[in-house]
Structure formats: C-alpha cells, structure tokens
C-alpha cells in the first residue's frame, strides 16, 4: 500500500524537522480520505452499472405480457444491490459528512433513483417519494454488530423498516439538524446506517427517469399499447410543469429540464401521430392493428 512505501522511500529526510513531521500527519490523513473516496467511487460505479442494467430490463415491459416476470426479476436485482453495494456504502459514510463524498457517489445514486422510480412507476403508476427511497437505503446495523467476519455482516444486513426513516416532508436545510433526517445520521443512536439522499439528487434522478418514460412510451406504440403514450404524457406534463416553475434551481437541474422538455415533445409527437393516423380508421380497429403488429 502507498503508506508503507511512502515511509520507506524517504529515509534520507530530516525526520526531526517540524515541517516533515507535520507533513507525515497530513500524509496519513490524505491517504485515509483518498482511500475511502476510492472505495466509494468504486461502489458508485458498480451501482451505476447495475442500475443501468435494471433499467434496460424494465424497458422490456413496454406493452409486453411478461411484465410480471420482469418486475419480479428487477425486485430481486434491487435486493442484491442493497445487500452488496448500498449497505457497504452506508457503512463507509457512517460518521462522515456525507456531502464530503457526495461527488463520489452522486452518479450511482442518481442512476439508482432513476431505476427505482421507473420500477415503481411500472408497479403502481405513481412517482415514488423521497422518504420511501431513503427508507430503502437505511439499514439496521444492530443485528450485525455481534457477528464476526465482514463478509457475514454484509450478507445479513437488514433494511430498517420505512418507519425508522424520516416520513415527513422533504427536509429543508435549516431544520435537518433536529429531525431524524437521513442526511444527518450522527445522532442516530440505534445503530442505523444510511446512504443519505439530498433532495436535489432525488430530483436529478426523477429528471433522468422521464427520459426512460419517453423511451417506454415510444416503444410501447410499436407493441400495440396505445394507452401508454397518453398516460405517460400526463405524468410528463406534470413533472415538466413543476420543473418549469421551480425557482432557485441548481444549474445541473436546469440543464436536465431542457432534456425533459425534449422528451415531453417527443411523446407529444407520438400522441399526435397516433391521432392523425387513427383518423383514418375507426378507433377500435386501430388498437387491433397495432397489437397484432406488435405481437409478431
């Protein structure tokens, strides 16, 4: 490891110099921070990859009959993700200022939020709330403390119940201190660890999720599902309107809102096409035509 070698390489240095002594301390501190950062980046990268896979999987739902199967396969993948990636990530963040490492895990987190909101939308046509997502990423460590090996710890991690996590409104920065907000976890006494989700990360994930909605809407037409585009358009319009109306939004979110607006217009065009083409035959025939086209 770098640390040992660092020590070896500098035999000729004047170790009595206060400058050198001070820098030896800095060296250890920087190394420990960088190592933690590296581990978090690695976990985040794995989470990104796996979340992308889940999204790919979920896109297969579009108007398909195997929807049930796909959803349950996705559920299994999420479970595995919690166990092997998010729980270790929560342990890394335990006792830290999560914002110090946010840049390291932000990409993975956003991709995960994109995947999980997409999953929930397919499940119950609704937008998953932040506190629900946060609850999924909150783990009860108590059970593991008695175990021996690290490996086992991970294997047996259990997610805390939703009730254990904040159930109220999105925390505002001022009052996070005195709520049980996940972002501030040092005050948690009961051995709970969590991967904190700042609300803006949640919104960024939502913005990406709309891109997947658009893809699904366009794909589903081909699969004979003529209802999805209108339904999706409805949700997209709500989200788009909300984004349009946000004030004080960070730059990153503003940029994504442009993509969102393009997605919206793509779905609008799909609905327009359906209407224009539908004008040429009676409505009931239309569905028939598409569904048989899609079942080939």
């Amino acid at each position, binding site marked *: 490891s770098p640390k040992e070698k660092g020590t070896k390489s500098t035999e000729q240095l004047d170790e009595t110099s*206060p400058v*050198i002594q001070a*820098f030896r301390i800095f060296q250890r501190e920087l190394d420990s921070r960088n190592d933690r950062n590296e581990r978090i980046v690695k976990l985040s990268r794995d989470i990104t990859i796996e979340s992308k896979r889940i999204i790919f999987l979920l896109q297969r739902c579009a108007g398909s009959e195997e929807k049930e199967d796909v959803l349950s396969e996705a559920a299994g993948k999420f479970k595995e993700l919690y166990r092997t990636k998010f729980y270790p990530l929560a342990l890394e963040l335990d006792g830290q200022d999560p*914002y110090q490492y946010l840049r390291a895990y932000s990409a993975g987190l956003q991709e995960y939020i994109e995947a999980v909101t997409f999953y929930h939308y397919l499940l119950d046509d609704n*937008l998953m709330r*932040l506190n629900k997502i946060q609850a999924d990423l909150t783990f009860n460590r108590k059970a593991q403390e008695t175990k021996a090996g690290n490996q086992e710890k991970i294997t047996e991690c259990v997610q805390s119940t939703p009730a254990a996590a904040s159930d109220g409104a999105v925390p505002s*920065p*001022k009052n996070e201190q005195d709520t049980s907000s996940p972002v501030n976890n040092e005050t948690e006494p009961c051995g709970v660890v969590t991967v904190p989700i700042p609300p803006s990360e949640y*919104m960024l994930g939502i913005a990406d999720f709309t891109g997947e909605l658009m893809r699904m809407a366009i794909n589903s037409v081909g699969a004979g599902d003529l209802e999805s585009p209108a339904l999706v358009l409805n949700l997209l319009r709500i989200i788009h309107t909300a984004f349009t109306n946000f*004030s004080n939004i960070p730059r990153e979110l503003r940029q994504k809102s442009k993509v969102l607006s393009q997605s919206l217009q793509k779905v609008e065009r799909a609905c327009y096409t359906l209407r224009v083409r539908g004008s040429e035959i009676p409505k009931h025939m239309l569905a028939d035509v598409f569904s048989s086209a899609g079942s080939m």
Partner: protein
Amino acid sequence: MESTTDIFKDFQEYLNADHDLREEIRSVVRSLEQTAREIQTALQAIHQPSYLSNLTSLCEQASTHFDTVRQHYSALASKIPEGQYYRYNDHWKFGTQRLVYLSALLVYLKEERLASREETATTLGVKTNREEGFHLDLDDYLMGLLSLTSELSRLAMNSVTAGDYSKPLRISRFIGELDSGFRLLNLKNDSLRKRFDGLKYDVKRCEEVVYDLTIRGLVSREEKTE
C-alpha cells in the same frame, strides 16, 4: 396525482431554504474576502526596499485585521447546519485558502518558520478537525501554503533588490523543506496537485537567486550551509 404535485412543492421549499442560506453565506464570505484583501494590501509593503525598518509595525497592523477575520468565521460557523460543512464549503474555500496564506506569511515574516495547521486554525478562529465543528480543511491549509511559497519566492528576489543578500538563502531553504514535505503526499489529480506542480517554479526561482548571488560572491559559503 395531487400527491405528485406535493412532492414538487416540498422540493421548492427545500430549494428556497437552500437559496436563502447560500445568500447569507455569500454575504459573510464577501466580508471575509474583503478583510483578506485588506491584509494582502497591507502586506504588499514587504516588497518595498524600506520594509525592514517597519516590519514590526507592519505585522502588528496585519494582526489586528485577524480579529475581524475571527468574527466573520464565527458568524459563518453559526450558519452552517451540522454535518453540512462540505455542502457549502465551495463558498468559503477560496477565501480560507487566502487567509491561510496570509496568516502563514505573517508567521514566516515574524519568525521564519512554518505556521502549523493548529495555530493557523486558531488565528482564523476555526477548529482544526472536522469532528470539533467548523474547521480548517486540510486541503485549504495546504493550498494556502502553496500560495505562501509563491509569495516568498517573489520576496527572495525583491530582498536582493533591497540589498538583503542573506534572506533569499533562508527562503530558499524553507521552500525546499516545504517541497520535500509536499512530496510525501499522494495527491490526486485535483486542484492541489495542479497547484503543487507550480511549486517547482518557486523552487527554481529561489535557486536562481541563490545562484546569482553565489556566482558573484555575494554570499559566503558559511551562510549557505548555516
């Protein structure tokens, strides 16, 4: 879909609160940076030929500014929610680095030694470690030191102009020691690394001054190895 709309309303409140807090932070930081600029202006006098005569008064004058600095940091610290230091620290990062540099310069001018991280934190009125509260980030301390070496290498040259031929030797040695220190660190490809890459120019500049003095016999061998 009512509840969906609620989600966005909550988020807007969150954004507003965040925005207001940032405005407040920005305002304190602006004052902080203004004070830093004043100290910087005062200390620019060290490059004048005449500065040796009034070094003491110069340092005293600069020191009083640090009272103001501590007040600003205290105001700032009270605004930052616990555990969110790194959420907002982009706002004061630059100012803090500058103040580290200035307070370390002051220490060097007075005692020709490195200001430790602890005493620098104390001068600024912040904690040394994250766990204790609003603290002096190690990166910022190190960045400040790298500004110091740059300023000192300039001072080495101007000292010669002012007729002081021994100060450059001491500065060169000091910067050399810092260079060794920094080499111990495993820096990532970040701003610190980039700034550290500039240190070699400071080292070189001092070496050139020492060389110029040596080749003209303006410095005795004893002084060089003292």
